[in-house]
């Protein structure tokens, strides 16, 4: 069974989730194509924060110099370490769409230490666990193992991606943001719930 699936599922959001009718003036464009999801709907209550947070998140989380598979490994694994139900669910779907297998997603979303056969990805998982799963300095050996597989600028981006994901993890978990029905249905179809 997926350990993450045993986490307490958030029932009711702790803050209002705005809709198209209640979206503030500068937030309306995010609602023009339908429901933008609960992160935007929650952030819309403070439109000046939405205005800067969304472009930041979109830049850090979407296509970049890092390949999409690597980015989804980071996001799903960080979310699992942080025990964020919302982010694990949402990004399990994105990870599957990116080409990760159901077995890989299941491994990454477990709270217990995860492993992938490729050394590059195994080094990355160790880095994620050290950054997102602990406080204080990260061991030199973990950094050296990562450095053997990634260039410096990639390490910068990977680490910022972990940090941004952690911010989202705590935001979504603390505010009890709900997983959408579509995501739950897809995860059920894939046997991930």
């Amino acid at each position, binding site marked *: 069974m997926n350990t993450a699936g045993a986490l307490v599922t958030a029932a009711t959001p702790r803050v209002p989730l705005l809709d198209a009718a209640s979206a*503030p*003036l500068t937030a309306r464009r995010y609602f023009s194509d339908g429901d933008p999801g609960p992160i935007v709907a929650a952030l819309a209550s403070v439109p000046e924060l939405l205005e800067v947070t969304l472009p930041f998140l979109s830049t850090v989380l979407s296509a970049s110099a890092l390949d999409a598979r690597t980015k989804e490994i980071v996001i799903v694994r960080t979310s699992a370490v942080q025990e964020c139900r919302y982010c694990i669910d949402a990004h399990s779907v994105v990870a599957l769409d990116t080409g990760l297998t159901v077995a890989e997603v299941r491994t990454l979303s477990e709270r217990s230490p995860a492993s992938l056969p490729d050394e590059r990805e195994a080094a990355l998982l160790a880095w994620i666990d050290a950054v997102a799963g602990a406080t204080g300095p990260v061991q030199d050996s973990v950094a050296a193992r990562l450095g053997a597989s990634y260039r410096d600028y990639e390490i910068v981006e990977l680490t910022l991606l972990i940090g941004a994901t952690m911010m989202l993890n705590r935001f979504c978990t603390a505010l009890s943001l709900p997983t959408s029905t579509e995501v739950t249905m897809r995860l059920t179809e894939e046997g991930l719930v």
Partner: protein
Amino acid sequence: MTAIAEAVRAGELPGRVWMYSNYHCNLACSYCLTESAPKVSKRELTSEAMIGVAHDAADLGFTALGVTGGEPFLLPDMAHRLAELGSILPTVGLTNGTLFTGRRLDAAEELAGTDVALQISLDSADPDVNDAARGPENFAKVVAAIPALVERGVTVRIATTGQDPDAVAAARLCALHRDLGVPDEDHVVRPIINRGRAAEAGMGVDVTESDLPAELTVTADGAFWSPFGPTVVAGQLDTDLLLTRTTVPLRVPAQTLLGLLQGRPAGADSTLNIR
């Protein structure tokens, strides 16, 4: 000169900044935009906050202030606050006019000779019609307060709100306000807006932001496009016309408002005469 000052001077941005001093009220009018009543959440701005907004507004190049609520004069120092605001920029204070007896009337004398006008609501020359929307004894209290304030040298305007503004502006009401010492140019007539309690009762005209003057409005919950923005329905503050939660410094919401105005298509102004 700031971009705000240039926009105000060019007529792109209205010069008045409004403040909601509080949301509670001794009345509970049927069309109230803010669902105000005696026991609602007060959502007060402190005197220091209001003076701060006024100084910021003046520094940015705004040219006038407005204070509304709720009933501002439920705050005991309101006359003094208004006098202070009026020393910074010309100020209009909206009030239901029902509290000007005894000490409050005496306190209002501080407004004589200042750059402050009180705008008092009076909806009809017919006491029954007026009181149907605004509550028992409202007419009698208002027609007693207006001349008492005028006698003390306070500038008074009258605001009439009605389903059919042309009908309520009928000759009898104009004759009455002249009798009370308020000239025609100080009588404002406006429609009921379909927001707040009026929306729940199915009253008033539907509006969007293009129908409402883009007057920057500061409340305890953030800054809004127009004093008709921070309305309340079923106890919840409407957010559709929210600009920013940040109100200090005032340039943050002011720049957001200006950005929205400058991005607006030409000819988007309303003809609804909502003031």
